[in-house]
């Protein structure tokens, strides 16, 4: 009876089979290809992707990368902001676009974050010269931020540092919008503190060399950032007016350094050093070059260090200490000019910012290629290799060396098929294999494939 049912079924299906229009199969390939073209153009491939397994493979990766990417982006965004701000501020200053309309978008950020950064990262007198020119006289007193209030309080405590001086070294946008972006201000201060520590270390080294008195003493005339002034009243008290050339007593400088060392407060010390790194806002380019020359004649030849240390030593020349060496000074100046573009990078690097970025690089979890992974991939291609059967049955021993990137770097076929036509075919079959990458040395495996009918 089962046969009867089968017969009935087959008869019914045969009926269906006979309904196929004539010429249908001749036209079917073309129809299929045209449909394929159409679907490729319209991209209607949801089910196909699901079937092919590409989408599921891609989506977890994407989702897995999502949070990390987000984190990275968040972290990077801050860094880029600083960089962009620094770059824009630098370009503005170097171009001396005084009076021109400032970039509308970045004012906020420059005001909040890069104000203090600039003070740290632009220690060269040449760059600082333009800052007073950038300053706008009309500062709305009604919108004073906490920092400004603190700065004023500090200035009251430190009578030598005049309020005019502090306001001169703040950007107009900084004055206008500082209160709007406290977040960036905090960020800027954080970076400033980090950079200050680095600068302090260098200063400490310089102190060992005996150059510290003049260096730190001259730091006083530059009370640009209000917080720095506020946090370093000692510097402020020792500070003469920005245009003065009188050398402050070395004792004050030593005391200042001692305070920075013993204080234990890294940020305060940093800010002190930031203030110390600030040069006097001398308008005279000649004086500036003199400073540069004398500082370079004394200290580190490298651009990075030179940029930081230079202003600290500049007062020496003003104090008429006869150590001038014009020729190396010129060299140093040109070096520094070349290093102008690297000031921020160098400082950021010193502050450990780049290291943080490097740390975000993904590391491979796998340290080796497991035999399971190897077998899995090779097993996937075994069918292809089996197609190399040309009448001779036997085991092909395939020796494979896989690079850590997951590519086959070396493949050879041994066993019964060594140096036989099948060997080339098998090598070709496996050559394109891709293994999961790992972090380590290349690995070799041997894999056997039975070629049979």
């Amino acid at each position, binding site marked *: *009876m*089962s046969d*009867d*049912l*089968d017969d*009935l*079924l*087959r*008869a*019914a*299906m*045969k*009926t*269906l*089979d*006979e*309904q*196929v*229009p*004539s010429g*249908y*199969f001749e036209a*079917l*390939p*073309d*129809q*299929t*290809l045209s*449909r*394929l073209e159409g*679907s490729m153009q319209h991209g209607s*491939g949801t*089910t*196909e*992707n699901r*079937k*092919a*397994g*590409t989408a599921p493979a891609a989506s977890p990766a994407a989702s897995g990368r999502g949070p990390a990417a987000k984190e990275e982006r968040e972290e990077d965004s801050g860094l880029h902001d600083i960089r962009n701000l620094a770059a824009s501020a630098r370009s503005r200053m170097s171009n001396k676009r005084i009076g021109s309309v400032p970039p509308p978008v970045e004012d906020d950020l420059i005001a909040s974050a890069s104000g203090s950064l600039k003070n740290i990262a632009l220690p060269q007198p040449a760059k600082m010269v333009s800052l007073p020119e950038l300053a706008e006289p009309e500062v709305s007193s009604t919108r004073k931020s906490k920092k400004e209030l603190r700065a004023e309080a500090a200035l009251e405590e430190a009578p030598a540092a005049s309020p005019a001086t502090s306001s001169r070294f703040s950007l107009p946008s900084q004055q206008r919008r500082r209160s709007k972006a406290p977040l960036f201000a905090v960020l800027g201060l954080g970076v400033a503190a980090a950079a200050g520590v680095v600068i302090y270390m260098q200063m400490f080294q310089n102190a060992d060399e005996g150059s510290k008195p003049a260096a730190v003493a001259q730091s006083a005339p530059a009370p640009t950032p209000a917080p720095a002034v506020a946090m370093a009243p000692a510097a402020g008290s020792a500070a003469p007016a920005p245009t003065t050339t009188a050398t402050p007593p070395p004792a004050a400088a030593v005391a200042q350094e001692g305070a920075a060392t013993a204080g234990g407060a890294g940020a305060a010390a940093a800010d002190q050093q930031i203030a110390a790194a600030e040069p006097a806002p001398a308008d005279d380019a000649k004086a500036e070059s003199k400073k540069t020359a004398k500082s370079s004649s004394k200290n580190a030849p490298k651009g990075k260090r030179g940029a930081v240390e230079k202003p600290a030593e500049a007062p020496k020349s003003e104090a008429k200490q006869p150590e001038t060496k014009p020729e190396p000074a010129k060299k140093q100046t040109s070096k520094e000019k070349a290093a102008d573009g690297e000031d921020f990078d160098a400082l950021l690097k010193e502050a450990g910012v780049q290291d943080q970025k490097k740390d975000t690089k993904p590391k491979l979890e796998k340290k080796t290629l497991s035999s399971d992974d190897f077998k899995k991939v090779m*097993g*996937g*291609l*075994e*069918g*292809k290799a089996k*197609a190399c*059967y040309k009448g001779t049955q036997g085991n092909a021993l395939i020796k494979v060396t896989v690079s850590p990137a997951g590519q086959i770097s070396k493949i050879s076929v041994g066993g019964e098929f060594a140096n036989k036509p099948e060997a080339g075919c098998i090598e070709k079959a496996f050559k394109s294999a891709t293994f999961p990458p790992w972090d380590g040395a290349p690995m070799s495996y041997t894999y056997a494939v039975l070629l049979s009918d």
Partner: protein
Amino acid sequence: MGDEDPDLDRARNGDREAFGRLVRRHQRRVYAAALHILGNHSDADDATQETFVRAFRGLPTFDGRADFFTWLYRITVNTALNTLRGGKRGAALTQRGGAEAAHVGGRPEALGQNAPSPAHKAQSGAEVQRVLSAIAELSASLRVTLVLATIEELPHKQIAEILEIPEGTVAWRVNEARRLLRQRLGLVEPLSAARK
């Protein structure tokens, strides 16, 4: 499989001509399977083309572990099942009257082209219509399994591979489909089946 390799490799790399040759090679079996599952030419035609489109897109992921036709068959069955489960045309067979029975699934414009032979007419009478209606009443999974086992005459192992179910499930579905068909067609349960 070995003889398919050149075209398969080329098609995998996007060679449309090679893929066209693959289509020509397999289209009849793919179409037949789709037709037997879906029961009409229109749906079978659509499913066949869709199968090949999917196959072309999925070729880069075809690892060669399974036989190419088995893989293609799996796509065909899945496509047909999607159509059946879509509910649009799954019950087509049951809705047709006796006059249409001889041309179930045929395109209206094609009906006159393939005039059935007298022998065919004898076969495709009321009995054929009843069988087709009974098959159409089966669930999609039972219908597919029955068609693969009885009409396509695939071994249970291959059916299990295509449908990605255990072989035992295949056997159960085939028996269940037969039992239901017999019940609906008023056929007596065979002793051999009862013994099983």
